[in-house]
């Protein structure tokens, strides 16, 4: 469809509507559940599938080139920091994979204003935030202006 929503699992929470980058997951006014209103603008990015608390959203590959009978299901577990995949082929073969998604607690990134404010002189240098330390080398590289010339290489 590519994504579609199972009638009996969706409770109309709208998480998919909130996350869809293509703005194609909407709430059906009659059924009060989600649906994909524009399957031909779906990238199969799985953002809605991953966000659905009811596992109500699945993907059926694009009808113009994907034969039926397959499935690619996923479970993204933020607390565990993993994502799991189950791929089922049209002929029934299966493959399973699991990957880490994050190594630190969610919400733990520091705001840039939590770092010491830069000195006045730093504004006119070429260094960006956290440099040169974050580069893991002594200093930011630069070029001598006369190394840039017109002509063929």
């Amino acid at each position: 469809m590519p994504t579609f929503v199972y009638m009996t699992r969706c409770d109309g929470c709208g998480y998919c509507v909130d996350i869809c980058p293509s703005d194609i997951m909407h709430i059906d006014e009659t059924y009060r559940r989600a649906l994909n209103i524009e399957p031909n603008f779906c990238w199969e990015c799985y953002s809605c599938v991953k966000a659905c608390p009811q596992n109500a959203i699945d993907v059926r590959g694009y009808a113009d080139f994907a034969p039926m009978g397959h499935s690619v299901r996923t479970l993204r577990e933020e607390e565990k920091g993993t994502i799991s995949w189950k791929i089922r082929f049209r002929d029934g073969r299966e493959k399973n994979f699991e990957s880490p998604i994050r190594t630190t607690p969610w919400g733990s990134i520091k705001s840039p204003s939590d770092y010491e404010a830069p000195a006045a002189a730093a504004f006119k240098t070429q260094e960006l935030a956290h440099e040169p330390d974050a580069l893991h080398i002594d200093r930011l590289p630069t070029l001598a202006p006369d190394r840039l010339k017109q002509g063929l290489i």
Partner: protein
Amino acid sequence: MGLFGRRKTVYVDSDILVVGGGMAGCGATYEARYWGRDLKIVCVEKANIERSGAVAQGLYAINCYMGMQWGENQPEDHVRYARNDLMGLVREDLGYDIARHVDATVHKFEEWGLPIMRDPETGRYQREGKWQIMIHGESYKPLVAEAARKAATTVCNRIMVTHLLMDQTKSNRVAGAVGFNVRTGDYYVFRAAAVIVCAGGASHIFKPRAVGEGMGRTWYAPWSSASAYALPILAGAKMMQMENRIVLTRFKDGYGPVGAYFLHLKTYTQNAYGEDYEARWFAELRKTIGDYVDRHPVPTCLRNHAFLEEVKAGRGPIRMVTKEAFQDPHKETVGWENFLGMTIGQAVVWASQNIDPKHINPELTTSEPYVMGSHATCSGAWASGPADYAPGEYQWGYNRMMTVDGLFGAGDTIGGTAHKFSSGSFTEGRIAAKAAVNYVNDLRNNRPRVAESEITSLEKEIFQPLETYRVHRNEIVAGSVSPSYLLPLHGLQRLEKIMDEYVGGIGAHYTTNAHLLTRGLELLQMLKEDIAYLGAEDLHQLQRAWELQHRVLASEAVTQHTMFRTETRWPGYYYRADYPRLDDTDWHCFTLSRFDRRSGQWEMEKAPVYHIVD
């Protein structure tokens, strides 16, 4: 409009407005806060920054990392690589600037929690290729979005920005942006001292290979609607190298990436008869493009060229030989996880067609063309370079400022910096933001002002498609055919057909000439006139209507630039059949354009290329 009452006008004032919350926009927002502790920093995004932009579904590699801490590469090396891949034409000052900062960005990503794979023997980041490192990047975008949310004063999600605002007294100075909330229908007016455009490049300007349900499975995201170009073009900013569209060789139908397959898994391509076909076409190519074909690595467009010629010769399909590599369980896992991490649709295609690359060598194809600024291509705005070394002709103001005062850009928006990818786009956002903070601080109280009349007239223009639909819908019984309006999808399909047939799409074997381009421009002009009759049934369709307008304007720029450059610089991306040779005498230069909003005319000029001389 919603059910209740009238549309509201919401004013959002800021010092720095970041338009688009993808990789570049998140980088800009983060850096703006670091330098502008007391500034009001607003990031506006048409979707939700948690999953927006090209990295919404994740990435399995970071394709731009020097590894300076281990002496792996220096910024100059990356400049030479990008220059070589783009047949000589990149902004080397800008590319060097990204390369020298990008490692710090990647180290920050790792500190924030991005799982970067390590080589078990050396302890360094696991290299996929010379420039690429491998990551478990399913949550790459949520992670970067978390950093941006911590930095921003406000993140405005679900607001489609349609136009930039200009200062009422100084016509070449930006003063903000306008758009609408795709949920509430409210009109948004962002007044800002500086604007950083970090919007997306262009998918769906050329007809895609799949035109049914599968038209959504373009290589670049379907939500990349050319706002990166339309916003600066309408503001009168100079654009560069818009002819430099990219064609991708990818796994068939899903457009799954091939980088890890070539570089890490060491798979290779062959024709239907099991032959290596590239060398035979390179010999012929030498006659039209000279020794560019002998450079290493072979430029992306030239490898496409060999693929295309082999298919035209009737020896397709071209396949990726995976059966050997996939016998190794580790490589098999990498091969699949590579898709699951960034192009899940390819895994869906393979599952549906019973393609297990351990037993079947999968088919490859060449995509429809795209226009963007961060991959093996570099269309975009013409921007001022870094103060410490950029040549005079590349320096007229603050770093990454366009030719419009106060208007900055990063990512797909800025031209000339091929191969920056996700990490480089984030880095370029940071570079632009520090410069924008300096610009705002230097302005002090000399802030831009917007004429009320401009705000009012743009409001009428933005919401007109809703009104057009409302007025004319009842002329017809039902359905999509009206004598009074076009729906956004109608306009998009017309655009894609024009670009495909006249400007070098798949249907024309990526080939065009001056006659075709002239006719293409005539048809584009009629499409632009018809856009006044777009009808939008609801706010979602209003978003589609404005995405279409951005795509049409970018397409016009692509066509004008393609007409101007009378040579074939990038065979495999496109061909000027009337000028089939690469011409370094006349065309070792950048093409620049400027659109005059009042007259509707385009002015074209050439700009010099400066190389890092060894």
